[in-house]
């Protein structure tokens, strides 16, 4: 499936939740209308998205937190799977866009891209549940029930590698995004 169509489905479910997006998910997430409100981009420290989301989920237990991660990004802080499983935030939903390449830097393959299984790793780390989808119709049908489950939940989304050269900093992004999101959450 295409990343953009998968993210459109997730965006429709965001509601008053908070989202964190990393790297190539960022432009599509803005296009889907799920940002900049209640949203944080991560591009300055690959691998950070899940830990950002963990902190927000712990501080804001009444809101669902959607983390839009990438396979290459998650591999850079893979220990976060164990950390998140240990902290066990019930409002944490971890979507990993698996395209098998480092798209931004020129489509180099990610390690073990032909065999790695993020859902199995999350399950083994101790997430409450983990899924993998590669078909948009199945994702559309199953997503509502996935989001009814208590987290932490990981959903691996097998998507096609794209050739998106858009800027990772959409024009709508506030200059002080961390402060802006904090003011939305805390006042």
């Amino acid at each position, binding site marked *: 499936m295409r990343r953009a169509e998968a993210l459109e489905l997730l965006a429709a479910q965001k509601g008053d939740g*908070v989202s*964190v997006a990393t790297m190539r998910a960022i432009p599509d997430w803005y296009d889907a209308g799920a940002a900049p409100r209640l949203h*944080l981009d991560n591009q*300055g*420290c690959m*691998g*950070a998205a899940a*830990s*950002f*989301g*963990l*902190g*927000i*989920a*712990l*501080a*804001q237990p009444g809101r669902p937190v959607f983390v839009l991660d990438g396979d290459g990004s998650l591999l850079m*802080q893979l*220990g*976060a799977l*164990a*950390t998140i499983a*240990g*902290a066990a935030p019930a409002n944490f939903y971890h979507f990993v866009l698996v395209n098998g390449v480092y798209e931004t830097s020129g489509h180099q393959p990610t390690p073990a891209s032909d065999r790695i299984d993020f859902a199995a790793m999350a399950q083994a780390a101790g997430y409450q549940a983990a899924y993998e989808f590669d078909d948009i119709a199945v994702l559309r049908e199953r997503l509502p029930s996935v989001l009814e489950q208590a987290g932490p939940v990981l959903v691996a989304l097998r998507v096609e590698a794209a050739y998106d050269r858009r800027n990772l900093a959409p024009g709508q992004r506030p200059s*002080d*995004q*961390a*402060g802006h*999101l*904090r003011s939305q*959450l*805390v006042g």
Partner: protein
Amino acid sequence: MSETQTANFADSIPAPLLHGAVRALGVTHILSVPDTHQKTLLALLMADPELTTITLSTEDEAICANAGLWIGGAEPLVVIQNVGLFAAMNALRGVAMDMKVPTCMLVGQFGRDVRKPVEENASTGVRLIEPVLQTMGVTFYRLDHESDVGQLRKAFDESRSERKPVVVLIGAPTA
């Protein structure tokens, strides 16, 4: 950037004193990758029912989770060791500095010979942390003796008021 140059080196720093100082900050969450130097302090923090202590796999995660907690309205404190801070330089730069996130860190000087000044220690982990922080423009304070405990409040308040990382280097094992 250190404001103290303690002439007399302590063999240890009382953990209950530091625990009390942490509580007085109004901290809600402790983010820790365990540090041998601060193990008695960590034991007190983990046993404190008023604090939520999260053990993370890496120091990168600690700095990033600190950001998420602060954004969400909590008051986190990072407790790690010197070699862990070396491992987390990209998060320190890309998150705490570039995103202007208040990040107060207690950093144990693991491997330090307390009978010698930091600059004369054999361990590069001990000797190089201050020059690296200076190069990065990260403010740090030394907490080498119990009389330095006020540095923690100073560092915490500075991290909040200026939205930046501030490090407190714990120069002797807590006991």
